[in-house]
Each structure stands twice: as C-alpha cells, then as structure tokens.
C-alpha cells in the first residue's frame, strides 16, 4: 500500500513545477519608445532596478551597458549620451523606418536583456468633424466640467478597418498661449492630452481637452500590442503586486515603436452678445 502512495507522491511531485524566477540582480529597466522618421535621441533610456537585497537606496541611470540594435540583418552598437542613461545611433540623424523589425540587446553585468518591436505602418487621419470650434470665454472650468455635453466636441475619424490600436495626443501649438477657462487649476496649465490606446475608428475630443485658444495639433499614434499591454497594466495594485507587462526578456520595461499622422484644428473665441472680450 505504502509503495503505491509513495508512487503517487513521486508522480505528483514530478508535475510540481511552478514558474518561479530566480532572484533578479542587475536588472536593466528599458524605456525604449521609437518614433518613425525621428532620430533616437532621448528615446532609449536605461535605468537600474533598486535592489532591496543589495541594500541599494537609489535608482541609477545606466550609462555603461553595451546596447546593440539589430535591423535589416545589420547590427549597430548604440552610444551613450550624457549621464542620464540615454543611448542613440552613432549617426544621430539616422531615423526609424516604418514596417521594419528592430531588436535590442543590452549586455549588462554579463546578463543579456533582449526585446523586439515591429514598427507599425503609418496611420491615417481620415477627417476631423470640425477644423474650427468656438468657445466663449468667461466660463468657469468647473462649470464646463459639470456641463460637458453643452460644449463643443470634435470627432476624429481614422482609416482603421483592421482595428489597430491608436492613441491621440492633443497639443496647443501657439507660441503665446491664451487660457480659455476661468479658474483653470494651475496643474492644468501645461496640459497635453494623451488618450488611452483604442481600436475605434472614431475618437472624440471634448472641450475638457482644450485649455487654450488657437491652433492645436492632433497626433494619432499607431501603437503595438506590447504598448497596449504595458499601458493597461501600468498601475500596480497593492493587493496583487502586478507589474506592468514587459516585452523585455531578462529585463524590465518596454521597447516599442510608433508611427503617427497629424491634423490640425483651431479653438476660436466665440463672439457673445457682449461682444468679443479681450
């Protein structure tokens, strides 16, 4: 009898494999966001993980890793820039190209972290519902927030039959900025709206996304699933201690790429019965 119990026990133990990682030391944290037709400057950054067991007290920038980018059967070692952990191509004008596959390898303390991204194809903004909207001045910010439906909106249509993920960035591009809302909280004055990634073909902007009169650019970024996964898991729950999803093997962080299309619209001060307020 006991023989059989022992046998069951051994069979059970043989199945008893749980995915437990070994202790992470010298973990590299990759912040790699590559944009098509832009140089790499300030877009690939390496920082360290503060290790409790090593008694570390500070997160450090990593400036001495060997960083190599692979693309088109080529490989190129990136060079560190300054002391903040940034790396770039030796030719600072070299740009990221749409549709290509880029791999990164980071050799740090004999531990090689790897990640891959395929640069998405360029998105296309098909149309904006309005290229000019009118908003009265002398409106309290909180009043607008409470009655948001009473204020202008803009619909942005994308060519997106394949349900790619996009996010929007809305930015006032006037050199001299003129605030729309009364009592705008000081924290909102440098506001740039960046939306969550979405697979929709029509995205909407409401008046709460505009803080200033004048010309705005709307940039639609097409993003990969790796970015969506990382974005959606960016908040760490104290109960589950989930970490943001990473596509970096033997490392942390994210290595991804974006392509974008840009359109413009203007927010104009609306003439009231009282006349134009200056």
């Amino acid at each position, binding site marked *: 009898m006991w023989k059989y119990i022992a046998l069951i026990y051994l069979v*059970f133990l043989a199945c008893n494999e749980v995915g437990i990682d070994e202790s992470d030391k010298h973990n590299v944290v990759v912040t790699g*966001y590559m944009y098509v037709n832009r140089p790499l400057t300030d877009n690939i950054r390496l*920082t360290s993980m503060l290790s*409790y067991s090593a008694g570390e007290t500070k997160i450090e920038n990593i400036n001495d890793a060997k960083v190599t980018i692979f693309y088109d059967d080529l490989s190129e070692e990136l060079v560190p820039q300054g002391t903040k952990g940034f790396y770039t191509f030796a030719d600072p004008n070299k740009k990221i190209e749409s549709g290509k596959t880029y791999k990164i390898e980071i050799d740090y303390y004999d531990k090689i972290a790897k990640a891959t991204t395929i640069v998405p194809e360029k998105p296309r903004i098909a149309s904006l519902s309005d290229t000019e909207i009118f908003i009265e001045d002398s409106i309290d910010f909180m009043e607008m927030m409470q009655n948001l439906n009473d204020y202008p909106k803009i619909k942005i249509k994308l060519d997106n039959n394949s349900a790619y993920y996009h996010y929007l960035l809305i930015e006032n591009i006037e050199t001299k900025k003129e605030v729309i809302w009364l009592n705008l909280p000081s924290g909102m004055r440098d506001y740039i709206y960046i939306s969550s990634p979405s697979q929709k073909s029509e995205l909407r902007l409401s008046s709460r996304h505009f803080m200033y009169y004048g010309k705005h650019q709307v940039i639609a970024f097409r993003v990969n699933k790796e970015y969506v996964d990382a974005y959606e898991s960016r*908040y760490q729950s104290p109960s589950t201690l989930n970490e943001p999803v990473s596509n970096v093997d033997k490392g942390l962080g994210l290595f991804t790429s974006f392509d974008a299309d840009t359109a413009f619209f203007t927010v104009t001060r609306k003439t009231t019965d009282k006349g134009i307020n200056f």
Partner: protein
Amino acid sequence: MCKVKLIFIFTFITGLFFTIYSSTYSISGTVKDDQTGEELPYITITVKGKDIKVTTNVDGHFSILDIEEETITLEIKHPSYKTEEVTVDRSKADEKLIVSLQSIDMQELDKMTVRATKGEVVKVSENISQVSLSPSLMEKLPSVGEADICRALQLLPGISGNESSSGLYVRGGTPDQNLILLDGFHIYHVDHFFGFYSAFNVHAIKDVQMYKGGYPAKYGGRNASVVELTGNSGNVQNFNFGGGASFLSADIFFDFPILLDKGSVVIMARRSYTDILQSPLFENIYDLLEDNTLEEGPFSVQMESQPTFHFSDINSKIALRPNDKDIFTTSFYFSRDNLDNSCFGEFEIQNPFGGDPFPGKMSEEELSKWGSWGCSGKWSRQWNKKFYTNLVTAFSDYFKDGRDSMNMVVQMGTIEREMGFTLTEDNNVRDFTVRLDNIIHINQQNDLEIGGEICLLKTVYDLSVAGMMDTTIDEQALLSSGYIQDKWVLANRVTLLPGIRLSYFQESHKFYVEPRASAQIKITDNIRLKSAWGIYNQFINRVSRPDVLRGNGDFWLLSDTDNPLVSNAQHIIAGASFDHQHFLIDIEGYYKILSDLSIFSIISPDIDSEFFLNGEGIARGVDMMIQKKTGKYTGWIGYTLGQVEHTFPGMNRGKSFPADHDITHEIKFFNNFAIKNWDFSATWVYGTGRPYTMPEGQYLNILPNGSVDTIVHVSAMNGKRLPDYHRMDLSVTFKFDIQEKFKTSIGASVFNVYNRKNIWKREFDYVEGELIQTDNIFMGLTPSLFLNFKFR
C-alpha cells in the same frame, strides 16, 4: 361439473397463494430520535444479509422497495446514536414504520461492548467525497472557546482554513465557492469575530453533510463544495431548556411540543459579552488583529482605542406534522457582529518653516456591523412509498455596513486647521429562492431525483469616500435551474449516479449545461472503488479584499458577461476506501480545472478601467484519512498532498503561480479517549507554509505621456513560503447529571499547547534603504473553559 368447479377453485386459490407469497412488497418509514421525536436525516439503513442500503432523506424518511423475503432485519446506524436492529415482515407493508434511535449517552459508553459504534464526530460516507458531521458530539473537539462546526470541518483532509478564518478552503477552492445551505436557504457569511468563530451555533444544528467535490446535479451555483446544514427541529415529546457559557459568549435554548405533540418549536440564541467583559481570550484575539499605529508621512500617531465588540445569533424552527404524510417546517436564522473601533490620538507634525512642531489631535469613529439572516418554509410530502416531494421557499440576506469618519485638528501657531473625511462602505446580497425536489423510488435499483429552483439574486455594493467618490454597483438577476439524476444500483455491486443540471442566468443571457456522474464499485464487503466527474458553474462571487478590522473587506458581486465572470470548474475524482467495522482507510485523488476566475485588482487608474484580472487555475491533490471508529480510543489521521496554481495573463508575466491558499502538505491528527464521564481530546495540525510574494526591488515606469510610476518588483508571485504551520490543542470534557432531568457538561480547552509562533502574514516596508520585514503571529497558548446544561 363439480369436478370442474373444484379444479377452478383449486387453481384460483393456488394462483392467489402464489400471487400473494411470490410477489414482493415495499416498506417505508421514518427514523426518529427516541428522546425528542425529531426526524433524523442521512441515516444509513442496511438490510442485513442483503446488499441493500438506503439513506434517510432530510426529513428522516426512507423507502425500501421490492422486498422478496418474508422477514428482513434492518440495521440502522448513525454516529450519534446507538445502532438499532429492527425486524420487519410483510405485515408492515401497509404501515409507516417508525424507528426510534437512542442517542449515545456518554455515561453508558463503558457499558457498551467494544464492537459498538461509540459516537463518531465524523463519518465518511460511502458516497464519494461526502462526509457527515455530528454537531451533538462536537464538544469533544478542542476549540478556542466555542465548539465550532467550520473548525471541525477544517480537521478533515482536503479542507483547509486558518486561525483567522472560519472559511473553508476545499480542495483548492476559496470560501465563496462553497454552497452553504441551512434548512434550504443560502448562507453568505459563515463567521463571527473577524473570522475566528463560525456563525453557526453548534447546539442549533442537527446534521452537517459536507460534499468536498463531485457532488450530484441536485446542487448548483458553486464551484468547490456543498455544506448542507439541517437545523434542530425541536422536541415533540417534552419541554427542554438549556444553555451554555464560555469565555466569550453564552447561549440559551428552549424547545417544546405544540399542537398535541404534532409539532415542535425550537428557539436558540447566543450572544457574546465581549462588549461587557473583555476576557483575556478576547484581548488575545483582538490584539492579534489590531494595529493602531499610523506611520505615514512626516508624523506618526499612537491611537488609543477601547473597542466595543459583540456578536449574536438566533436560530428558530417550527415543525408541524399534521399527519403521516406531511411535514411543514419554517426556519429562521439571524447572525450579526457589531464593532465600534473608534479611537483617539495626539501627534506632532514637523514645522516646514523650522521652529516648534505643530501639535495635532486625531479622532476616528469607526463603526461596522456585518452578518446575515435568512428564513425558509418547507413542505415535505410522502405521496406514496415511491414518491416524495420537498418544496422550499427561502430568503437570504447578507449585509455589511461600515462607516469610518476621521477628523484631524492641527494647531499651527494661532491658526487652527481642521480637516476630515468620511468613508462608508456597504454591501448587500439578497436572494429569494423557490426550490422543488422530488424523489421517485422506481424500484430497488433506481432512485430518480428530479427538481429545479428559481433564485432571484441581488447584490448591492456602495462605496463613498469623503463625498468625492460615490460608487454603487447594483445588480439583480434571475437564476433558473433544473436537474435530473438517477441513483442506479447494478447487481448490488455497482452504484451509478448520472445526472445533469441545466441553468439559465439572466445576467449573462446564457444557458449552462452541467453534466455530472459518480460511480462506486463494491469489490468486497469492505473495499470500494469510487469516482466522480462533473461540471460546475458559479454565478456570484465574493471579491477578496483584505481588511481584517471591518470583519473583512470582501464584498459580493453578481457575475455577468463582463466582470466578474461566471466561473467554471471541472472536477475529476477517483478513490478507494477500506471500511472495516473498527477502522476506515479512505483515499481520494482529485484534479480540478478552474476557468474564468476573477481577481479584484485595480490595474489602471482610468475611470473606465477593468477592476478584475481574469485567469484560470488547476487544483490537484490526494486526500487520505485513516480513522479508528470504535473503542475507548477513537480518532483519525488526515493527510492532504495538494497544489493550487493560478494563471493570470496580467500577473507574474503570465506564468502560473501558487494560489494564496496553496498548501502542499497538510496533516490533521485527532485523538479522543472516552472513559466513563470523561472525554479527553487532542488535535495536532501541520501545514506547509502558505505562499507569499517577496518584494525584491523597485524601478521607474516611464510612459510616453511623461507619467512616472514607481513599481515594486517581485521575484515571482507567491514564490516564497512562510515557515510551516503546526499546533497542538487539548481538551477535556466532564459530563454529569445533577438530577435525572438536569444534565450538564463542563470542559476546558487549551489552544496551541506548546505556544508555537505561527506566522499569519508577513508584511514589508522600505525605510531609508532598508527592507523591514514584519511578521504577524497567530495566537499563542490560550486556555478556555465552557459549561453546558440541559433541563428536561
């Protein structure tokens, strides 16, 4: 002509003779308690010399069909009663048989032969994964102040718990995955005193049936197990009065006959006096849970509190038996915990401009109450020997109301700044159920059960924080289910129980088909092989959120198409048992595939973000129990080798990880020695340490929008284990009669005899470059006393 007449008459008489004497007959009856007249559920009745066994239903009713022998002897066994033998012949076929069982009087134990069954607290059923518990014998078990049904169940292999939870973790399931029925209504909250005691008064419960898995199609709505409790229905013969007291609470009961012995009423109430008299036991438990030091920001506050806490519960049942065929019962249950944990403290805050620190006062009014209540009405009717019906209407309500108002006053020079906020959190579950169960005894080989239920479920969760955030989740749905199952005995050796349950859940607009089957093969009189398979769905979930001092932070939500999902489990169980008159060896292996699990986790600060992670899991293991059933010394050793793994794409990089309640090895050792009026008991429990997640470091997560979050990095989800848990408890009980009609028992228990420092939870804090690890320790050595009496 006369000759022809004679031949005709002879043929007729002979035919009549053969018709009478070669035909079979059937008997039916009820098994009752000799002293109280109460019907006894789930009693096994064996026809001696034949391989026929039947079990009484919840109303104590049984039928045996197609008997060929002129005379048969029935052997009736139950752990709490003396085994009875009754001889029945054909003449009883038209009568309803009443079998009265004498309860086991501890004082008579020594007079009984060693062969007799001497009151087993636990009886492993012949059915797969089914165990019955005798609450009347539960005071034999060592306890922390109160005899406790859930704690007793936790002593069985395959059922885990811990000191801080009366919840049952059955074969890798979580407490909310257990279907708990008391007289037909659902119980959503099973404990008192922050989980230390079960909410069921052991004196109010007559019978407990536990199905650890593979349960039949009759039961539905939960994924892991079924606990079916039958309340005491009272004495139809005499007036009884009794009560008891321990360091924590006192209870009292009355039961008496009504309507010329055609009915009975039982009323029981229990209340803790922890708000009046705070015994060392109360303070031990409360100290374990309480932490009144706030250490956040540039100041720390030592809060002073004098918590006021009490719990109470009431059980009541009325049973009416207007005739031999009908039984009407109504049952009521109420359970509530109240906590006033208001506290006050003074502090100093650093002056940012230098100079003397600013003095401040902080007060917190924290009021909580939680519990549940329910009631049911049942009509049972024996239409004939072959057809029995139960119709139940039931209502159940779970409530948790919490209010926390904090006020802080800081004196900044001549300026007094006052700030405060109020948090309220309420959760309610209500259900109204109509259930019909029919048993059709087709023949000696087939018992067909067919029935269904309609359950209207409603959950409300309301959270309000400082008037800024007000979240209400109010959901209601109808769950309609029907089932059919047939217990089929083949050649008296093989018993099959195939069945199917079909449910429609309004919230998800889907039908759920749940086929189930179990089989037993009798190899010899003592050896049985058994197996079961089934599909199970769960439509309501308790969202787990640790918050010990408000009872718990968990809240119930209905499943829907979005989140939390309707979860699903597939059970595969196989085992064998060797059941000897004096001892039992039972072993079962199980494999459970769990899907559409939901874990509450705010993983994105977006307003429209998901609050749940969805994943799947596997629970597998082997349960083994060796039990000595007879003699002065009785007891068992239970061993479980188990593993529960979860896989959630958003956690642990998508790799599987041990669930929070994963325990690899568990050993439970129960010993009882009964001599004359004394009962000595000892338990020893051992369990592999529970898993926990060890933080290894932290890093910055920088997004293109410029947001920077500090993320704590963990090596692996639940990748570490707490030290192993073990503990020994002892108890002694002495029973004596002050008068013939005045019976008493007095006892003492010592919990954690060798004062083992078992770790409840491990917490971490990162302070000035150092990771501080804090272990919260479970209760150390804790003695307690109890007294029970009964006047008849």
